[in-house]
């Protein structure tokens, strides 16, 4: 832990309107200000400040990227899954060329990494991890949950996936292949969960409501009996 206990480490005060930078969003403000900055937060602040001062990045660009990431959440991934469940041609396109299929829905996944979609079936259950860091399909699902980044999940799901799945409440039959995807490099993985029984005739909107974040990581399976069609 850092020994710093100041609440505000930003040296260029964003709310100092006397300097005439009214259109500049100013430096990023911390989401959490109650506790002391960690060493990594201090490092991030220093590097970000330098990049802005040297003209490599602007505060506008940083603010725009934060807004972009905040616009991505599991709800977006759920829409994609519901579309794949109801439109076979879309599903095939999604599996063959995830980037293009998402672009067709108006979803831009950026250029930092490519995407792959892996489909669950009665024979195969897919689960995703990044053992090296915390690679995650952020452009589709938003910020990953804390457990996804934890050392425990990352180290254990590769060596004992069935044990980890049981802790998530998912018991896989012996006859089902459990396939772990370690996203070690330039690809991000989206799990296409199986459509639960009992959802026949549901609309795409209704279906999207039952698709959970964890089902798109592979640590959950969807159970239609837990849900009631609404409307």
């Amino acid at each position, binding site marked *: 832990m850092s020994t710093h206990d100041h609440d505000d480490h930003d040296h260029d005060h964003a709310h100092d309107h006397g300097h005439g930078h009214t259109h500049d969003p100013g430096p990023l403000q911390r989401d959490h200000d109650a506790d002391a900055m960690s060493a990594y937060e201090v490092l991030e602040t220093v590097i970000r400040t330098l990049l802005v001062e040297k003209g490599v990045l602007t505060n506008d660009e940083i603010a725009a990227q934060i807004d972009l990431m905040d616009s991505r959440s599991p709800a977006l991934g759920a829409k994609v899954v519901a579309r794949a469940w109801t439109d076979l041609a879309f599903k095939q396109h999604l599996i063959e060329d995830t980037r293009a299929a998402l672009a067709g829905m108006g979803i831009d996944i950026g250029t930092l990494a490519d995407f792959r979609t892996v489909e669950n079936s009665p024979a195969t259950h897919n689960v995703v991890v990044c053992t090296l860091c915390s690679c995650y399909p952020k452009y589709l699902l938003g910020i990953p949950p804390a457990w996804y980044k934890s050392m425990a999940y990352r180290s254990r799901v590769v060596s*004992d996936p069935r044990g980890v799945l049981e802790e998530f409440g998912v018991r896989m039959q012996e006859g089902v292949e459990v396939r772990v995807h370690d996203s070690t490099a330039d690809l991000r993985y989206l799990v296409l969960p199986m459509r639960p029984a009992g959802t026949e005739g549901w609309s795409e909107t209704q279906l999207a409501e039952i698709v959970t974040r964890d089902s798109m990581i592979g640590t959950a399976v969807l159970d239609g009996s837990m849900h009631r069609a609404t409307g």
Partner: protein
Amino acid sequence: MSGRVPMRPKYSEGAQVQVTSRPPQGHCRTPWYLRGKTGVVASDQGAFHDPERLAYHKPGLPLARLYKVRFRQTDIWPDYRGPASDHLEADIYEYWLTPSAKDQT
């Protein structure tokens, strides 16, 4: 300069490959637990700017071929708790792979 045109892939789908056991020199995207393990090329994932060069502010050229390699869990972990049909897949760059001794075709 090899330029931006990726080299032809060295391995085709189904080829048996072994992950090199050499220690990493700085940033690398090959996890330790797969070193020395043998698997099968599941697919050619395309050519990417080489992360081991990008990490040091180099352009990442020549482009590096990336494969999805499928490993049997029982080949990775001797005491794996699960059926022999369970697999793990990881994306491994071509320069980390060698032809497996079991597959010299």
